[in-house]
């Protein structure tokens, strides 16, 4: 009896030592990992970049796509090296929290519909009409306001089911920001945020939720990120942009909107790319942002910056494969200059000035 007890103790001790050794080994490996959290919209491209970057450098990125709000909360609490948000923070908010932000990748929100007999790109819509639909002022598809934009389409006398994102999201922010810019009534009654109080319609969770709800509900209209439209071949609507042209969503149309934005004159890179000028600009375009503390003690900050630099310079092709738009080189230069001038870890500069 005693013999067996002793043997047990020895065995347990051995197992514990082995476990602690393993834990120690993985702990060493983990010290290199860059941790980030936030927006779901850029999560697919961040994951793709992280995979390629790990193959080349051995440095891993652990990104939790918990939503823009969650990303902002986590970076404020400094539990991650960087946060990510689809909604840029106002310059004074950045200052209050001691944060810097910069644009990392560009994408867009696309209106999609479920109307029998209507092909992708056939339906034409403009901002004020979409605003009226989401305000509950236009309730049927054959409303004169919609019919006037589509003289060639025969629209049914069907109830419109406006579908929105029920969870807070950067897509919501872009969509409501655009509608607030083109419709004073929408700006006053609803406003622009990651989640708002919708006066009409039904909510679904996530891009997948909205996409499915639109596909399931006859007479529905919704808005999803571009990648979903490409991958699921949904019936998108063409939109009238600020210059008065009807455009179809495409990487070029997002690029055009981004190119027309004046980043140099935007303090804190606060720039929302909705309703930008330019004949080929897609009106609901937006950048996704990275957030970092100006002063930090996080040893991984340099590793994170190296990753972002790599993504800016070598990640464009991967981004285009996933239907995202890379940040223009001129903007990258401004961002990296900001890294050199603003960011400090334990009081030391972390990015060499060029």
């Amino acid at each position, binding site marked *: 009896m005693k013999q067996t007890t002793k043997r047990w103790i020895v065995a347990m001790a051995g197992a514990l030592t082995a476990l602690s050794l393993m834990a120690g080994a993985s702990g060493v490996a983990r010290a290199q990992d860059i941790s980030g959290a936030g927006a779901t919209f850029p999560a697919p491209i961040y994951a793709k970049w992280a995979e390629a970057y790990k193959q080349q450098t051995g440095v891993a990125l652990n990104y939790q796509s918990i939503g823009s709000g969650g990303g902002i909360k986590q970076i404020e609490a400094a539990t991650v090296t960087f946060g990510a948000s689809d909604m840029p923070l106002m310059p004074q908010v950045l200052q209050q929290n001691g944060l810097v932000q910069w644009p990392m990748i560009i994408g867009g929100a696309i209106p999609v519909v479920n109307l029998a007999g209507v092909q992708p790109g056939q339906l034409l819509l403009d901002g004020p009409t979409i605003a009226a639909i989401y305000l509950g002022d236009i309730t049927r598809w054959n409303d004169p306001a919609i019919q006037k934009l589509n003289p060639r389409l025969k629209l049914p006398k069907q109830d419109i089911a406006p579908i929105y994102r029920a*969870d807070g999201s950067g897509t919501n922010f872009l969509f409501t920001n655009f509608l607030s810019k083109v419709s004073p009534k929408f700006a006053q009654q609803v406003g622009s945020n990651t989640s708002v*109080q919708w006066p009409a319609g039904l909510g679904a969770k996530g891009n997948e939720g909205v996409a499915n709800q639109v596909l399931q509900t006859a007479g529905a209209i919704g808005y999803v990120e571009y990648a979903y439209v490409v991958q699921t071949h949904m019936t998108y609507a063409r939109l009238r942009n600020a210059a008065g042209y009807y455009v179809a969503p495409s990487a070029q149309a997002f690029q055009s909107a981004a190119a027309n934005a004046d980043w140099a004159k935007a303090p804190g890179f606060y720039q929302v790319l909705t309703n930008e000028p330019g004949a080929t600009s897609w009106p609901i375009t937006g950048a996704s942002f990275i957030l970092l503390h100006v002063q930090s003690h996080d040893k991984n900050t340099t590793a994170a910056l190296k990753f972002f630099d790599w993504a800016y310079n070598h990640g464009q092709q991967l981004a285009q494969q996933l239907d995202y738009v890379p940040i223009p080189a001129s903007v990258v230069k401004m961002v990296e200059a900001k890294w050199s001038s603003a960011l400090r870890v334990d009081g030391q500069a972390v990015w060499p000035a060029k």
Partner: protein
Amino acid sequence: MSAVTLPFKRQLRREARAEQVFRALTVCSAALVLIVLAGVLGALVHGAWPALSTFKFGFLTREVWNPVTIQFGALAALYGTVITSLIAMVIAVPLAFGIAVFLTETCPLWLRGPIATCIELLAAVPSIVFGIWGLFVLAPLLQHHVQPWVIDHFEDLPGIGHLFRGPPYGIGLATAGFVLAIMVLPFITSVMREVFLSTPRSLKEAAYGIGATQWEVIWDVVLPNSRAGVIGGIMLGLGRALGETMAVTFVVGNAHRISSSLLAPGTTISASIANEFTEALGPLYTSSLVALGLLLFILTFIIIAAARLLLARLEQRGASV
């Protein structure tokens, strides 16, 4: 003699000590439940305090839920929670009663086992599966075939017509209530079946003996005998319906509005929390969501307490008869 009693006494003492340790352990386990409960309540109140102190009583009475202007009220979510659960109960309770009566009284013996097993299997289906089924199968069916007919035939009824107005979206409070009904059905049914089975055979045979019909036996003998259990089963189902999250989120429409129509989209407390918590920005928004959680906690507590009270009163009356 003393050589025999001394070790015996020692053994007795050892056993008494073991007994004490055992008792202390059971007390600790029981106390743990209270501590966890108090901890949850404390954390909820602490988290909800900023919202409650800002909006005061208005948090309970206002329909607004606006993250832009930072104005929050729980009325729409509370309304949706209560209405979907009520719809579920109105559908599930009579159905469960029917199934339980069939299984205990009229069903051929060889069929009872398989049917009872099937109903228990229904309880094992994960709630997310009900949500997906609700969205992909039930909602289009309701939108194209059921709701247009309901709207055509009922919207002009005096008094209750407004309950059936509005465009047929397929999802909304009624659909959520329907999915909930299917989800709580197995819980209520199995409790009812168990308590119906516990009715003494002699009582039923005596009733049949004086010429009672099957309905009279069930209504006047079996049901009064198992009242407490039936109410317990219904409360169990109601508790589940109030707190159900995933399945409801899929089909309720997630709209912070109170509409007079049952076909209109709405939201529930748990669905709002699940949808908005990760992206809630600012202390008041987060706190308002925690306050919603506190409200659900209190609501469930009140319902369980009311059920207990009802049971106690029924038992008292039963004893005095």
